[in-house]
């Protein structure tokens, strides 16, 4: 056991605290007041504690301990190093906002009892924390599976609905396929020592083919969790099916455990990845980024839209990881550190931005009962708090300066800018083109976010029932405000964030990004190259100009403002249904990226008395990849089904034959 006053012990105690808070919910499982007003805020406090402990332990020494639990001869190892600290801080920090929001979120009669929900929720949090602390394959897999199972139960909270049941099944299936790949990867990594602690894996040396196999298996396993194309199909089904705080946890935080896993295996357990491995996550990441954002643009369900946007962001993260591996492999460690910092920074950003947006949709869902973008609109008037706080997340994820999404994008683009210096022919010409893809994905993300915010919060209400929508309660506002504040701070203080993240890159590749500690306001990631960015100055200049303009206009032209109905172009029967729908806003994307989609359209004829327009956009991967595999599995299952005769005598014969064969082998 670790010493009582060490950060590692504090982390373990906080995780145990989460588990206890969850169990406490079983005392009064039906009481919304007890679970919502006591347990969830307590969970938020524990999250804050975890973030503080993790941040304070960042610069400290690596701590390790062996726990007195586990199998005989196979106790669980835990370890707190800078990489875990960074992700624990992410988990703690983002979960504060989500838990605060959840305190006010759950209502009576929504599927699972609140106490049970609280148990699953807090166990989910604790298991994610344990994934980050685990220091042997056994502990890691136990935590990983607990994470998958608790989130499965959370996804199927409203299990009465068949779509949600099938989304949950798909999620569970993909989670386990991923887990098998991770397990096999660990199996290779132990390198014949049969010791499954991470220390043994660090010490073992693998031949190139085996190391490559371990890397690829890890990429498949963690990629399935991250929604890397073509393993993404479960993500847009499962994330929207869950209640919004759970969607926020899954998209905001759980996906980051996959990033953690890839970084841990590649840079820590394998140790020195070959440069060309990086091309695999780079290519897959770029494909995922464009694929995700294009699909996000055509969605009509607000939570599915956000889920596809998560796919895009995971693509960007894997792109960064790939770039870091390439740079590290060819010995350009300074640039590798830059790419790695961009990855860690973007993980942190995405945790805050995407949680904020999912919680915003949760508030909208509660206020209106609608997820369909086509039935929303004008909510900024009825729900100003939710609207304006969500706007912060929208601007951040669209990558606009001076918010946080821009910083990580900027760092990644800077890393790409120097990728032509990689001393490998052809590759050095193709790598910078990746920047074009990243830029395209980022610009499309802006399109998606304008669509999301504009259709949900702006314009006129598309349904009369929206007039009854009410703003979120106190806890919900606090949760949203915490996450929005995080987005702003992460955007304005990049040097402080990078200094913290630098400890993790030092651990992984022995180089810290140079910007750390130079100046508190000017970001200069590569000192000998003249690139810099100062968000505070930028903000001050923009705010100054806006204020000066506003005051001048106000002082000089004090004409009154009159309100009048909007201009109807002389057509006096404008109504809210003439606004763009979600389908309408997605039309240019469907038009331009037509080959991406499996489209089904019903167009009305000009003579129709009741014209109907319907378009269904599907994912080509279903038909091209998953349907054949499913059919193959079905056929294989059918072909062995004759074994199952349903007569006890036949089964006894099987046992007899098996025993005879075994005896024959043994003797």
């Amino acid at each position, binding site marked *: 056991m670790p010493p009582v006053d060490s950060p590692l012990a504090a982390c373990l105690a906080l995780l145990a605290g989460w588990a206890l808070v969850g169990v406490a919910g079983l005392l009064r499982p039906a009481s919304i007041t007890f679970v919502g007003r006591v347990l969830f805020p307590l969970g938020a406090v524990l999250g804050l504690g975890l973030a503080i402990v993790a941040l304070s332990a960042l610069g400290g020494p690596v701590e390790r301990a062996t726990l007195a639990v586990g199998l005989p001869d196979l106790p669980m190892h835990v370890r707190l190093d800078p990489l875990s600290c960074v992700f624990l801080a992410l988990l703690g920090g983002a979960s504060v906002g989500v838990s605060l929001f959840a305190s006010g979120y759950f209502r009576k009669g929504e599927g699972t009892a609140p106490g049970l929900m609280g148990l699953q929720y807090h166990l989910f949090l604790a298991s994610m924390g344990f994934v980050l602390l685990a220091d042997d394959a056994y502990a890691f897999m136990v935590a990983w599976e607990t994470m998958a199972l608790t989130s499965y139960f959370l996804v199927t909270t409203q299990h009465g609905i068949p779509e949600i049941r099938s989304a949950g099944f798909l999620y569970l299936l993909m989670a386990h396929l991923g887990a098998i790949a991770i397990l096999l990867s660990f199996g290779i990594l132990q390198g014949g020592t049969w010791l499954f602690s991470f220390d043994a894996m660090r010490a073992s040396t693998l031949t190139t083919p085996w190391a490559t196999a371990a890397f690829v298996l890890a990429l498949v396993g963690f990629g399935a969790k991250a929604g890397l194309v073509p393993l993404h199909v479960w993500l847009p089904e499962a994330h929207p099916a869950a209640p919004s705080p759970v969607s926020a946890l899954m998209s905001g935080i759980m996906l980051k455990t996959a990033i953690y896993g890839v970084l841990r295996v590649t840079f820590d357990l394998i140790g020195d990845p070959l440069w060309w491995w990086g091309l695999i996550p780079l290519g897959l990441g770029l494909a995922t980024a464009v694929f995700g954002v294009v699909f996000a643009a055509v969605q009509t369900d607000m939570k599915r839209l956000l889920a596809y946007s998560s796919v895009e962001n995971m693509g960007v993260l894997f792109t960064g990881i790939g770039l870091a591996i390439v740079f590290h492999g060819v010995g350009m460690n300074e640039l590798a550190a830059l790419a790695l910092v961009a990855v860690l920074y973007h993980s942190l950003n995405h945790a805050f931005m995407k949680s904020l947006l999912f919680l915003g949709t949760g508030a909208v869902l509660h206020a209106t009962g609608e997820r369909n973008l086509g039935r929303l609109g004008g909510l900024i008037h009825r729900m100003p708090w939710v609207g304006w706080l969500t706007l912060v997340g929208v601007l951040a994820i669209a990558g606009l300066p001076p918010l946080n999404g821009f910083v990580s994008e900027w760092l990644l683009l800077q890393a790409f800018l120097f990728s032509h210096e990689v001393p490998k022919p052809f590759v050095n010409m193709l790598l910078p083109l990746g920047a074009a893809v990243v830029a*395209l994905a980022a610009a499309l993300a802006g399109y998606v976010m304008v669509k999301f915010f504009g259709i949900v919060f702006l314009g006129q209400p598309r349904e009369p029932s929206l007039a009854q929508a009410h703003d979120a309660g106190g806890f919900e506002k606090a949760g949203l405000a915490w996450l929005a504040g995080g987005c702003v701070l992460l955007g304005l203080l990049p040097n402080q964030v990078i200094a913290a993240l630098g400890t993790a890159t030092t651990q992984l590749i022995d180089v810290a990004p140079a910007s750390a500690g130079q100046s508190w306001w000017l970001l200069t990631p590569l000192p000998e190259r003249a690139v810099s*960015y100062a968000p505070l100055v930028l903000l001050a200049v*923009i705010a100054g100009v806006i204020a000066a303009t506003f005051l001048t206009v106000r002082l000089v032209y004090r004409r009154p403002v*009159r309100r009048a109905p909007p201009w109807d172009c002389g057509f006096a029967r404008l109504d809210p249904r003439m606004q763009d729908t979600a389908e309408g806003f997605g039309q*240019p994307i469907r038009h331009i990226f037509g080959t991406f989609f499996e489209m089904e359209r019903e167009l009305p004829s000009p003579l129709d008395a009741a014209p109907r327009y319907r378009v269904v956009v599907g994912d080509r991967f279903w038909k091209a990849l998953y349907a054949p595999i499913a059919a193959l599995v079905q056929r294989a299952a059918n072909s062995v089904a004759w074994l199952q005769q349903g007569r006890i005598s036949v089964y006894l014969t099987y046992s007899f034959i098996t025993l005879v064969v075994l005896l024959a082998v043994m003797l």
Partner: protein
Amino acid sequence: VSATAWLTQFLEVLAALALAPLFLGWVNACRAWLQNRRAPSLLLPYHGIRKLFHKDAVIATNASPLFRMAPYVVFGAMVAAAAVIPSMGTGLPFRSAADAIALVGLLAIARVFMSLAAMDIGTAFGTLGARREMMVGFLAEPALLMIIFVASLISATTALPLISERLAVQAPALYPSLAFTAVAFTMVLLAENARIPVDNPATHLELTMIHEAMLLEYSARHLALMEWAAALKLFNYACIGFALFVPWGASLGEAGVLALAVSIPALGAKLAIAGVWLALLETVSAKLRVFRAPEFMATAFMFAVLGLLVHLLLGA
């Protein structure tokens, strides 16, 4: 940072604010001459802005605060962008705060806020304009970024003033990659500033408009700010073009007041020629159908990427 640098910075922003409507007037006048029309006064944009500032503002009944805020944000972003672009001198104190990628971000802020404001009222044309603006934007933005990338690769920095400075001091050689990107840049400039062939600044034919559709609900001072911001955007784009493709004439680095004095007529000459060039392009091309606009933008993006490839292949 010297006093001259601050003076350059100050003069540049001031020049952008003051000259942007004039540049717009000049382009319009050139276009009129080329089309055998009598040109309006060069000062017409100033009159328009002044007139609008003096009117009562009318706002739609269901406008949210975002709608009233947007003109100030758009204007603020454009002025901040003008502060990063080396139109007169490259020794700008502000250049370390925002590089060319941040500049693209500033332009994106303006675009996003303008689109959101257009969606705020909830009329058919507003949302239509917002959608089309974002459609043009999502292809134009990466194209612009790639154009800047090529210049950055040549000059090993992303700070626009430094790019311009390093390009200016090099021997005047013809970079094939810059030639490709110059074509791409011209296309992006036309699309982003709502010029023919993507949009028509003179149109009020509802079905084809993009930029004007977003402004339909604005009036008085809000409209004045939006129009001024649009003029500033055209001016900014022109100056980005000068910084990348004709960097000569601007005062370099810490050069003295004399160089700054020289740079002012140089900027004027460049603007005058750019205006004629723009008007010529607009006169000889026809407005594209809206559905063809993405192809135009995709071509620009491909040209920019081609420029990047050419640079990597030839090293020039």
